[in-house]
């Protein structure tokens, strides 16, 4: 069996599945249940200065798929709404009872040196394994100059990170906000400030839906609403890209990354690891299904690793980073063509209409005597865009076949059609 244990930024954990700082890690009761279920670590719900935050009702909303499956999740909650004292006491107790699990404390206090200087020793006294700086909360807290308001200004990120490294010996993980143009700017700032790792993403500014009867967005508070933070399955692609951007940035080379955003299965987690993460955090999937999901995640990941011959996470961590590059380095001579498996095809016509209306008119619809249609790819017209394969409802029915066109590797930088090509 593969060994799932990790050491991430100096923090040891029996497995890489951690719960992200959020309601699942809000108090001892939840965290103990999470550890009982098998989670390798938690990032405690973000602590702040007293008085504790006060939340509104209601707080969540979602973007649903056709079968009411939750595609994306949105919240307008603030950081912990319990006193600092209670949280610190519970953290101390839980860490004592569960010494083998990673227990990281998320923090958000005003961008003032004194505030950090005061809180850090209190946190260290709990015996926790590290701290995570919440520079990401996109709703509520930024209006008070915290959370994303800090995360969006590289100088603040660097400065606060440095204070933390100065006033604490604990590993410092900087949690980044995705509500920013270039995620690398923030990661570089954290790196300069001495961060031991970055974690990302926090939630994305969002409005999931509008109640058209009441003419107010969701979630509704009285007769009003406000934008929230988006997370869950829908944000995974955004998170993966941001992780990859940092992983392949030479300026922050070697900076450990903890992946967060839309992780709900072992496969999601493996993808984050492949793009350079050393651990992952989960929030929404646990909120929707409970802590038990970690069982299938652990089991699935270790079986897959066994099948691949990976003994530990480090064996494949970052393996897909090298293959992620800029557009200009892609092989312009590479060509794939769609091929329909006629035995698997159920004749829904979706590939045809998609290509016909919106792409390259490369799938012919041939009327059959019995009134049905047969769909065939016109090889000469197919540009290999994948659209038909994506809209096809049958798994593996359309295959994108690499063509042996005899042409050598050629990127745009050297393509004669590029007026600004590199000569030579």
């Amino acid at each position, binding site marked *: 069996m593969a060994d799932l244990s990790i050491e991430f930024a100096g923090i040891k954990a029996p497995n890489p599945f951690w719960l992200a700082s959020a309601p699942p890690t809000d108090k001892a009761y939840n965290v103990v249940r999470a550890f009982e279920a098998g989670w390798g670590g938690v990032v405690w719900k973000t602590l702040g200065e007293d008085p504790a935050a006060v939340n509104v009702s209601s707080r969540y909303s979602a973007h649903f798929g*056709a*079968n*009411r499956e939750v595609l994306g999740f949105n919240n307008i909650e603030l950081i912990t709404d319990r006193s600092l004292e209670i949280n610190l006491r519970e953290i101390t107790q839980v860490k004592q009872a569960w010494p083998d699990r990673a227990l990281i404390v998320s923090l958000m206090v005003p961008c003032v040196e004194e505030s950090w200087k005061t809180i850090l020793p209190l946190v260290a006294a709990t015996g926790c394994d590290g701290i995570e700086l919440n520079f990401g909360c996109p709703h509520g807290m930024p209006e008070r100059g915290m959370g994303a308001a800090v995360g969006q200004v590289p100088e603040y990120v660097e400065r606060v990170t440095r204070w933390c490294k100065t006033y604490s010996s604990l590993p410092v993980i900087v949690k980044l906000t995705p509500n920013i143009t270039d995620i690398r700017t923030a990661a570089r700032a954290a790196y300069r400030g001495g961060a031991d790792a970055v974690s990302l993403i926090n939630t994305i500014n969002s409005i999931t839906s509008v109640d058209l009867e009441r003419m107010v967005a969701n979630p509704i508070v009285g007769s009003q609403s406000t934008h929230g933070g988006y997370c869950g399955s829908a944000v995974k692609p955004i998170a993966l890209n941001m992780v990859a951007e940092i992983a392949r940035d030479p300026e922050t080379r070697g900076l450990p990354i903890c992946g967060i955003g839309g992780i709900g299965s072992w496969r999601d987690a493996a993808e984050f690891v492949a793009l350079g993460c050393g651990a992952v955090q989960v929030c929404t999937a646990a909120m929707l299904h409970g802590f038990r999901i970690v069982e299938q995640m652990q089991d699935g990941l270790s079986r897959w690793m066994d099948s691949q011959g990976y003994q530990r996470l480090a064996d494949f961590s970052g393996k897909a980073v090298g293959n992620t590059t800029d557009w200009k380095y892609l092989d312009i001579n590479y060509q794939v063509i769609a091929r329909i498996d006629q035995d698997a095809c*159920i*004749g*829904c*016509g*979706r590939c*045809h*209409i998609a290509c016909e209306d919106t792409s390259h008119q490369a799938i012919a*619809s041939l009327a059959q005597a019995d*009134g*049905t*249609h047969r769909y065939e790819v016109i090889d000469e017209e197919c540009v290999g865009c994948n659209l038909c394969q994506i809209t096809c*409802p*049958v798994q593996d029915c359309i295959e994108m076949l690499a063509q042996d066109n005899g042409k050598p590797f050629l990127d745009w930088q050297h393509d004669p059609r590029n007026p600004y090509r590199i000569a030579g």
Partner: protein
Amino acid sequence: MIDTLSHLPRPHAGAVELADRFGDLAPPLTARQAALESARCLYCYDAPCVNACPSEIDIPSFIRSIQQENVQGAAQTILSANILGGSCARVCPTEVLCQQACVRNNAEECAPVLIGLLQRHAIDNAQFGEHPFQRAPASGKRIAVVGAGPAGLSCAHRLALYGHEVVIFEAREKAGGLNEYGIAAYKLVDDFAQREVEFLLQIGGIEIRHGHRLGVELSLSLLRQQFDAVFLAIGLAASKRLGLADEQAPGLLAATDYIRELRQADDLSQLPLAERCIVLGAGNTAIDMAVQMSKLGAHDVNLVYRRGFAEMGATEHEQAIAKANQVRLLTWAQPQEVLLDDQGRVRGMRFARTQQVDGRLQSTGESFELTADAIFSAIGQAFDASALVDPLARELKREGERIWVDATLRTSLPGVYAGGDCTALGQDLTVQAVQHGKLAAEAIHSHLMSNVEAA
């Protein structure tokens, strides 16, 4: 009352219990079920299901509207292709029509989308403040429709939509045709058939004259003189005969006669019950008859067919309904003799065993007898030739006994159109009749309008 069965007892069960047994065969979908099922539709392009629907309903479109919580829009899409979409959703043998063709109708996809039930969901749940179709300005044209069954009603609605005035001449007291008098009670429950007719008539411009029977009170020649066009939709008003001696004996009658009585009964416990009965035939009518008698409380219902299961007109789904209602299906047996008791009433039937030799049906020489209190013949509906007796009507070209029409529902007589069961075109199904009516209306309209333009 059905005279020839007046000697039989009444059902043991009370009216309430019976009404319950005759409840909806396929109950409507709940909102949750409709949401789940509509999400299963792949929104196919050139969808095979549409091709398989005789009335060409845009199925992917209406299902997507349901998915998007727009049942009103879904209903309008259905009704614009099939104004009797509500009854079709209930009576169509979807297993051989739309759902048969659904791309999800295979093991890999688990099951076809339940198109019929979704169609019913849309129609049942749409609430139209006013009739959803508006008539074009009056054209000044008048059209006679003979027969207020699905074909006649569908034609009338489409014609009224185009601004024409329509008079429907109907022999019976109620409109609806077999929707009112023939379809099994558990498929079209309560007064749905009448409510649907009322809805359809809301468009205006349609007058129904009951008690006018072509061949008796009406002649085709007169209709053609008085109207700009005539649409014949008189269905199949007669039943095929067995051709045996004693066919008039008390205890033997056409299944459709019994079903008509049943459909009109306010209190099912007052119907005659044949505790032991024989139903002859293998189509929908035979199944419906057998199942309904079983529901009334008969404990020995035998459906006898001269050929095998594979040749049965009733679909597998229908056969399964029969079996689920304790109907015994006997194949390869042909009626030979009606057996009478000493008072001359049916006591059973003798059958010859049959077999297929070189594609021909033959008697094996063996025979057997079944005891029965009544025999219901459901070996097929027949064209009632007495409707076409006036000199002009006699000129109509026929195909077999039915009226010949071309693909645009024109008969051999200019200005006279026909559709539904009384023609040989297509299958004898409600949805087919609706489509005929619709196409005939289109043909009549374009003919009348082209004359206007030319004038």
